[in-house]
């Protein structure tokens, strides 16, 4: 996420809808963003659509301590698809309508039940693919799950812990191989 997508609230003018939130204290993003408050404008979806889809994303991939901002990027991606394709927008509206206005604030067990009933729908499949496809590719998720990403520029892991596991016995040389430079 760049500061471009995290715009101060007062800069909103004509967005169709808006998602807002506060970065958690200690969030890796809080160090980079101008303020802990974030807001994200939606082009095709309303604020209430956005809130329902946020709840869908959080139900599909519930990581309690992962910032809302990461989930908001999922909704931003879904919104961008809907802005480009009226059929996608109609499909999203239909799904949101089926879930009903209380979905976003319902307890998790209810949300799970309601989504289970939609499991074979295009709406569910699209949201599942978007949530999983976008959420875990965000820098917030990399930091949260400990994934280190691109390593070539740092010389790979040859000298940075590819073999630093010590809770199991070492592999005998015949079944392993020489560590270059070691």
């Amino acid at each position, binding site marked *: 996420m760049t500061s471009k997508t995290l715009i101060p609230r007062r800069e909103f003018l004509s967005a169709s809808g808006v998602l807002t939130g506060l970065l958690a204290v200690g969030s890796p993003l809080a160090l980079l963003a101008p303020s802990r408050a974030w807001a994200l404008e939606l082009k095709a979806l309303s604020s209430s659509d956005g809130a329902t889809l946020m709840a869908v994303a959080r139900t*599909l991939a519930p990581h309690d301590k992962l910032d809302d901002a990461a989930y908001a990027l999922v909704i931003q991606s879904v919104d961008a698809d809907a802005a480009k394709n009226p059929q996608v927008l109609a499909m999203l509206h239909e799904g949101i309508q089926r879930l009903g206005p209380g979905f976003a604030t319902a307890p998790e067990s209810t949300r799970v039940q309601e989504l289970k009933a939609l499991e074979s729908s295009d709406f569910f499949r699209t949201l599942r693919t978007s949530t999983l496809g976008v959420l875990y590719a965000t820098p917030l998720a990399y930091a949260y799950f400990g*994934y280190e990403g691109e390593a070539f520029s740092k010389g790979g892991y040859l000298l940075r812990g590819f*073999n630093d596991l010590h809770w199991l*016995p070492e592999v005998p040389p*015949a*079944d392993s191989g020489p560590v270059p430079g070691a």
Partner: protein
Amino acid sequence: MAQISHDDSSAVVIIGSGAGGGTLAHELTRRGIKVVLLEAGARQSLESFSQVPGDAFAQLTWLEPRTFSGTSTVGIDYPTLPSWTCKTVGGTTVHWTGATPRIRPWEVKSRTTYGEIKGASLIDWPVEYSELEHYYGIAEKRMVVTRRNGNPGLPASNHFKVMYNGARRIGYKRVHTNYMAINTRPADGRGLCIQQGFCVQGCKTGAKWSTLYTEIPRAEATGNLDLRIQCRAARIEHGENGLVTGVVYRDPQGQEQRQKARIVCVACNSVETARLLLLSESARFPKGLANSSDQVGRNYSCHTGGFVWGLFDKPIHFWRGTTLAGIVEDETKHDPSRGFAGGYHLELAALDLPSLPLAGLPSTMWGRDLAFVLEHYRNMAGIFINGEDMPRATNRITLNPKVKDAFGLPVANIHNDDHENNAAMRAHAQRQSKALYEAVGAIRVVASRQTPATHNMCTARMSKDPADGVANAHGQSHDIANLFISDGSAMSTPGSANPTLTIVALALRQAEYIAAQMNAHAI
């Protein structure tokens, strides 16, 4: 680099620049034979490989539509990507993981060894194993394979330590860091593996063998290669005598071009190879080229498998290190007491974080269950099951007239019904993998279902009897003497080994045959 005119009918035209086509191009050009190499994709380099997983995937993958039918769960879990192949110079040798085990002796005699299996279309290979072994030896030297020819193995990663200790504790004996076409030390003008774990995104040190930066530039250096990138073959043409005369293709601007040829070699990866032969139908060959046996596209084989993930309460950081540098060979045997014919390899496999949930877990998994797995991302270990797929005549590539590509040509439909032998083998491999991880303290073990194949094979297979297949023991089509199958499509059966080494070995062998036939003016 050579510039061969469109009217030059003395050239060999190879379609596809991967393990088969790229190797064949080098082998022919170094013997003084002019080659036009058509590649549908663009040319990347060590510098241009993206290290953002999603971008790298888009940079290298064949993303044009394919459709799917059949009972395999691939159609449910991966409806838009029923097979995972490349569209780039170097083909799947750009995204492959470098694992190079050999097919085993009994696997080239599977029909004889396994006997009659209901619903299967097994045949014995028309190639003797001793002959295959000879070319394996040459291929392993060429590709600098670890654990062969005195090359050391790759060093054990954290991830492999987990596999190794688990495997040994449940009694496995043949467990090591795999046979890999990945440099442990600089060799062949290429760098060494720095254990970065970005194997499928394109190897930025060139430690992993790929035709992109070995065979193809060497072929270019002979002055006999005319490589044409972003050129998509549309059909192969033939003359009145029934021999092929050239290839119609679309150039990078989308314009139709026609390249004359003395010989045409098809190496487009099994799905597209079958599609191109079928698209090349004519009044004389109404079922498509080389298809008098009606075997083109049939016997479509992958490898039986999928992922098994072990979750632990201690860190592993499995993304650090060569992705597939680990193997258990003990289950690679034919032992019907296990409840199935043929065998499988267990291979080390990690996935980057963005790819894991969509590529590595079943689509039925979401909510707290999914979150639990991902919350253990630091503490995960992975196995990729690579087992012999049971070929079926009804598992096949056909043309889907309802879905067209950008040029208006019908796309390939992949039909795949899982054979019960596969189901039994997969279940066995999943049980063994679970036991392996539990032996070293896994708190939970999770399996994917069948994943989209990057190992696509046997759709234009070599057969002794022309009625059983498409090509003879040299990949030369039974019907048309100057039309060759030069990729994994030609494999008679899939075996249980990752196929690239076998494809390279067959291409080396085919090049000798083509050169000899040309010298003798037989073709």
